[in-house]
């Protein structure tokens, strides 16, 4: 097969993957992002051993203390160490940020490619379903799901994944449609490649850059969703903490003890930034036309 400089088929070859990783490693900004996330994950996992503060205690005598050596960011309305609460919250927020996005990405990509490539009735049915999901106001859909299933972490994943897959599918489908007409696809079909192989080996890899961008866009989305759901009372429940809940509850004290609400907000900001740096780095590294 003739491989031109712009032929995306080469993505499937392993040498480029290795080159992609090397390219990523050269991208300093992306590395900073990755480092931040790795550190965050490690700290979040080992926080019970790192911090001796109890994130669930109620010590009303130590309400709203300003930052000090004992409490690096001060205390909240129950006398809990704000930093510890944030780090415990990291566990939940990281989970909530990544898992539902992954699930909706996988489902959305699969259905989007299927729909766009195969066309016909399959396309009609899948797009009908996607239309229903998109048409249903997202926040309301999430709320109704949470009310039906109950407000806990697993159900938040389900609700968010349900909300997200349809728009992924639509975008992937339109990309698939655009790719379908490309020469190399028609060449592959003329060669007798099965539809499934075409979809997996030829279409999917070219959709990856979009998927990566969508993923890095959807992580902050998911964290924001969780925060809105917590604000409305159907997200994570106290005394558990997620960043979204901390910000939502902290809003009440914004005019008295701003750190309580601002600090988790900054945590969200930094994490979102980090994921974005990683996402951008990934996209730049994996796209071969960057080679020249």
């Amino acid at each position: 097969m003739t491989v031109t400089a712009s032929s995306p088929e080469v993505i499937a070859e392993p040498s480029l993957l290795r080159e992609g990783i090397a390219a990523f490693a050269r991208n300093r900004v992306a590395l900073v992002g990755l480092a931040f996330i790795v550190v965050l994950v490690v700290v979040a996992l080992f926080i019970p051993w790192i911090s001796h503060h109890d994130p669930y205690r109620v010590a009303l005598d130590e309400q709203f203390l300003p930052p000090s050596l004992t409490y690096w960011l001060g205390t909240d309305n129950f006398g809990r160490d704000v930093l510890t609460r944030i780090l415990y919250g990291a566990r939940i927020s990281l989970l909530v940020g990544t898992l539902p996005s992954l699930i909706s990405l996988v489902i959305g990509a699969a259905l989007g490619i299927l729909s766009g490539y195969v066309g016909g009735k399959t396309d009609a049915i899948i797009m009908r379903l996607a239309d229903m999901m998109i048409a249903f106001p997202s926040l309301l859909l999430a709320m109704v799901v949470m009310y039906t299933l109950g407000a806990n972490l697993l159900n938040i994943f389900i609700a968010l994944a349900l909300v997200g897959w349809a728009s992924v599918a639509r975008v992937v489908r339109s990309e698939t449609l655009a790719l379908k007409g490309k020469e190399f696809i028609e060449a592959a079909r003329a060669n007798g490649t099965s539809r499934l192989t075409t979809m997996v080996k030829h279409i999917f890899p070219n959709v990856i850059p979009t998927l990566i961008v969508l993923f890095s866009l959807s992580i902050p989305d998911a964290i924001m969703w969780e925060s809105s759901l917590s604000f409305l009372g159907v997200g994570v429940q106290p005394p558990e903490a997620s960043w979204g809940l901390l910000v939502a509850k902290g809003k009440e004290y914004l005019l008295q003890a701003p750190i309580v609400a601002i600090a988790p907000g900054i945590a969200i900001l930094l994490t979102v930034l980090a994921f974005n740096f990683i996402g951008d780095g990934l996209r730049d590294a994996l796209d071969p036309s960057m080679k020249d």
Partner: protein
Amino acid sequence: MTTPKFKLLLATALTSMLLLSPAMAETLRISYSGDPKTADAQMTSDSYTLPLNIFDRLVEAETTGPGVSALVPGLAETWGVSADGLTYTFHIRQGVKFHDGAELTADDVVYTFDRMLNPATKALGTDILTFIAGAQDRLDGKAETVSGLKATDTYTVEITLTQPYAAFLALLASPQASIYNRAFTEKAGDQFGLTPETTNGTGPFILSSYTLNESEELKANDTYFRGRPKLDGLQIRVVSDNETLRLLFESGEIDVFDLDYAPSAAPYFYGSDQWKDQIRSGPRVGIYYYNINQAKKPFDDVRVRKAFQMSIDRQTILDKNYYGRGKLEDGVLPRGLACYTPSTPIEYNPEKAKALLAEAGYPDGVEINLEQASSWSSQWSDMYQIIQAQVAAAGFKATIITTDEAAFLAARKAGETNAYTQVWSADFNDPDNFFYTFFSESGSKVRAYNNNDPEVFAQIEKARGMTDPEARCKLYQDLATRVVGEDAAWVPLFSLDHSYVVQPRVKNFVVPWNGWSDMSYYNVDIE
């Protein structure tokens, strides 16, 4: 003849007219956290600001002092009760006009209560009238009129009850008993109370605009029978976000700020030079309590219930979460209510609680759920977390379960909750409003107490009909001892002050006796 002098005179006259005309700026701006949905007091069960200002009742509960009220004549000038306590005769004030000009007659009173009991109305407030003879038949659709309601002449109404009910007069002062005009209300049909054109009352204010989910406006009734209110109008804004409400107040767009919406801001307002003299506070004749469901383990055992009572450090919650603005309560009735007498204090003793739990078969502690609704304000969710930590010391491993309000009410009705906390402010000044609500047979079930003590049920029913005030109060006292002390059916917590911050221009703002947020603004003035 437009001589320059004439023009000058004209100009001066016009200007002074403008200056002297009542300034529309004398409008009191208050807020509501959700749209009241209707002005019809019969069709709502929690939004009474509109009815309290647009309508009047036969009698009124006037706030005579902090937490103290007296029944004063309203639309009824005088009244009498028959010796057997069954027949009430009201003499209606003459010359009272509705906003549309019609005169109030006894027939309007009969119509109003009949409307409430008419099943086609789908009224929610029917409980206040169920003692009237013939009410049940009317509700069940078996009768076209209510036999116990009679207009004996143009200005006299006779109401006959099925049994004596000591609280009946006090009940008639509640907003649900607002009086409507027959002709107008019949014509308005199911639109009554929904728009200014279909709302008509005798009250100090007239509904002038109703924008759903945004605001309602009322203007002063110049021909109000007690005299025109000092305010020119009332603007009720629907503000559902608490921090927005606070900003609206601090930037001067709203005149009254209810501190219930920002409990943690109390120290700020009390400590601020700008606001500390603008705080209006009054005791709330209402009690914060912890419900206990006896239909579910482990609370089916009285020892566990008593242990629970002893494992809550109420004083600390009062001091730290509510900044000491209230008093502990130990019975069923809060301070300020008729028949109130102090009960034996409940001690805080986690050690003893632990021992009781062990005795009941839970030496290693027991798991319980504390249920709450997510739409409740954060002061509740804070309280739950505090109590969760407190009762742990006695061995109660508490899990806080949060659902939305609808799910909470459904679970409670089905008896599936363990324990929850809430507050009850007096609807009317009578012990029946507390005892019946919580510990009668129906109340105990629907509120998930399931305190199935037939003697208590019987005594509560009996107390409703007793006519001797002293004996009645004594009965309630004994009931409290039994329900709280022996049966440990609930945990009384405290009664709190209700505090408001008002703009300096607001005068004469008085916290109503029962600490309600819904109140009449007739006496308020702006300068």
